[in-house]
């Protein structure tokens, strides 16, 4: 079957699903949207903005002013347009994934492209937040677009998408270095052949300056739209200071509900630095395959981000489809998938028990987020192992691979 036809069919199926009479509860679900990505808060912010009230003066709206400007003018949000917009966003993301695969493998159209598109469009971790119209789907789109453009060598679009992504979701700053390395390098698989690479620092500096240029233009636009600088405190600073402690499938919120004020700044710094410390080692180790470095850092983001939704680890799991070469070398894929299955059943169950039925408490939900975190962490570690293991080749008879 022609790939384009298959792609169109998948997108149409998603559109039908988006228009299906599903329960309204998705928008309220804590797993599918966080305070930084919730569709309800987006509506609230746009409404306040249209009526002349600064949405950043209260504690409700934590999203970028660019969303305010786009959703109050070009793309109105209502019952008909929201499913269409979010399905289009997912379609673009799936397209970007397919294009990245084509750039990496060097193959043109193949049957695998339809599989990749299905893997993105029908991954429950990804399409459920999209049904909840969470803006994490838009972040995923920008994420995949920047990687696609970088893999294809198109500098400016890649940097623009990256700047928009960092602007919208500050923790994605982890991706800046691997994407720049990807622009400077090549997307083809270099896992089997690790070697130190030579970096063109002049070009790298120029790329970095262009990224900063894009970022500052977006920041100035946001300041203009918002009419002040208050928005910086209410968007970027919220992720750093965890102003909102709404439950989410991440690991930060429970820890900080019971944190004494005295220790709060220290632990906030520790958690933020925990995200940043992965950049240098991963990029140095996987310098010969920057796309893999970007993949690993996506996994780090999915596990330890401040306000994750299911989309973030979902993106990591879907991106494993870009690297079929590591699949034989994964040590415990069954364990990982079972932990994920376990967590994905427990998370909504305990959330319901705690908040709707009232027979459970926050510890139940926190335990399920811990299991989810273990699942993500185990998947990440296994992928790192497999990426490194490929370089050693197949095991010979009588020999075993050990780690000293």
């Amino acid at each position: 079957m022609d790939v384009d036809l298959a792609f169109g069919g998948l997108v149409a199926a998603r559109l039908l699903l988006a228009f299906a009479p599903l329960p309204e509860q998705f928008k309220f679900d804590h797993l599918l949207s966080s305070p930084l990505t919730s569709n309800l808060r987006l509506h609230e912010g746009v409404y306040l903005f249209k009526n002349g009230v600064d949405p950043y003066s209260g504690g409700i709206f934590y999203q970028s002013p660019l969303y305010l400007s786009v959703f109050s003018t070009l793309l109105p949000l209502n019952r008909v347009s929201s499913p269409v917009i979010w399905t289009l966003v997912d379609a673009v993301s799936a397209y970007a994934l397919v294009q990245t695969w084509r750039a990496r493998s060097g193959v043109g159209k193949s049957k695998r492209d339809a599989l990749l598109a299905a893997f993105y469009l029908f991954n429950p971790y990804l399409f459920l937040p999209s049904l909840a119209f969470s803006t994490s789907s838009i972040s995923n789109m920008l994420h995949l677009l920047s990687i696609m453009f970088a893999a294809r060598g198109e500098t400016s679009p890649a940097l623009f998408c990256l700047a928009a992504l960092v602007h919208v979701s500050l923790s994605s700053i982890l991706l800046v270095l691997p994407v720049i390395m990807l622009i400077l390098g090549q997307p083809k698989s270099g896992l089997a052949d690790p070697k130190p690479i030579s970096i063109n620092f002049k070009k790298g500096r120029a790329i970095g300056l262009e990224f900063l240029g894009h970022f500052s233009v977006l920041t100035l636009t946001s300041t203009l739209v918002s009419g002040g600088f208050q928005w910086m405190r209410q968007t970027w600073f919220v992720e750093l200071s965890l102003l909102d402690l709404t439950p989410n499938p991440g690991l930060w919120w429970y820890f900080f509900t019971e944190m004494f004020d005295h220790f709060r700044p220290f632990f906030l710094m520790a958690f933020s630095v925990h995200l940043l410390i992965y950049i240098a080692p991963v990029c140095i180790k996987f310098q010969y395959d920057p796309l893999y470095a970007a993949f690993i850092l996506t996994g780090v983001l999915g596990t330890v981000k401040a306000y994750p939704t299911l989309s973030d680890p979902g993106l990591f799991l879907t991106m494993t489809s870009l690297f079929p070469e590591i699949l034989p070398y994964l040590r415990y894929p069954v364990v990982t998938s079972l932990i994920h299955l376990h967590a994905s059943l427990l998370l909504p169950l305990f959330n319901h028990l705690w908040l709707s039925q009232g027979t459970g408490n926050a510890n139940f939900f926190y335990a399920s987020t811990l299991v989810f975190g273990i699942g993500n962490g185990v998947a990440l570690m296994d992928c790192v192992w497999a990426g490194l293991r490929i370089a050693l080749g197949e095991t010979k008879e009588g020999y075993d691979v050990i780690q000293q």
Partner: protein
Amino acid sequence: MSARWGWQVSTLVLFVSLWLLQALANGQTHHEQARDFFNKQGNGNHTNNWAVLVCASRYWFNYRHMANALGMYRTVKRLGIPDSNIILMLADDAACNNRNKFPGNVYANPGQGLDLYGDNIEVDYRGYEVTVENFIRLLTGRVDPSVPRTKRLLTDDRSNIFVYMTGHGGNEFLKFQDNEEISAFDIADAFEQMWQKKRYNEIFFMIDTCQATTMYSKFYSPNILATGSSQLGENSYSYENDRDLGISVIDTYTHYVLEYLEQINKTSQLTMQDLFDIHDPGKMRSTPGVRSNLFSRPLNKALLTDFFGGVSQAEVMAEEDIKSHVMSSIAEKVPRPGAGEKKTKALTPSAVKMVALQEPLSKGDGIPSATARAWTGAGLVGLLVAWVTISATR
């Protein structure tokens, strides 16, 4: 140089004096208007009512003291004081006592007619929280920061407070919880602190214990009206027993007061003098007393609802009166000397707009409106996308 400055100073003096003149010439200020409104019926200047009802004794056999306090609670609540303005202190739980044959219910008359406890009750201080220290802290407002709002006496200088105390008492003391006592001096000093801190407008103090009138003999702060159930050397007696419960259910003095208050409602014009007229030493088996020397108003002008009820003053104005009222108040607030006619004409449309109050929030006051900014922002992002696309295809 000096001539120029002199010119400016004299202009300033002229403006200021013109403004002062017109302010004085306008007659009443807003404060005076408000005060006249609240003084209209000579009701002593209060704007809100509070009640502090204390039952200071515990144990099952003091059921009647709890019934006293609960009876007062139901009365003031019926007459309009909300739970947020009532501090109910019960030293023991008669309703849920093991010896209560009718669990969850407290009756003030034999025969289980009217339940005082059951539905819709808010006890603020219960059990061991009813102590002398808590009571005085409550009155003076010197509470720990952790004390919740419902346990604070949040009165101001326009509050009328009804303080009712019942329990076992003696010569200038009242027994709390069987292990401590509060003296008349303590309460007097607490009231004086309240006066100094402007925490009350008028206090009505009622006490039903043995030798009750000694408890208010030491007050020295203004605007306090006090009444007690018995004189020095006399006991106050309980009224009647309930055969099923096995104890006395109400005290005599409180019984007659409650019986009298049952007949009034929020619109009642009966006065405190009428209440004190029911004092009958023969019926009540003790001699009640009244102390009114600290009270500034005559007793036949002080309404019962000034203390027992939560009645507020309201005046209904016609719509034309509102508009003219608002416009005249705006004219007062913007005292600009100069061409008077032009100014009032310019003021009128904005005054009418103020009354309408249905327009969306003001736009276009110098800062570009939100939609303009949004379009500009979207346009800028679009330009950037276009530039990026063009430079990529080049």
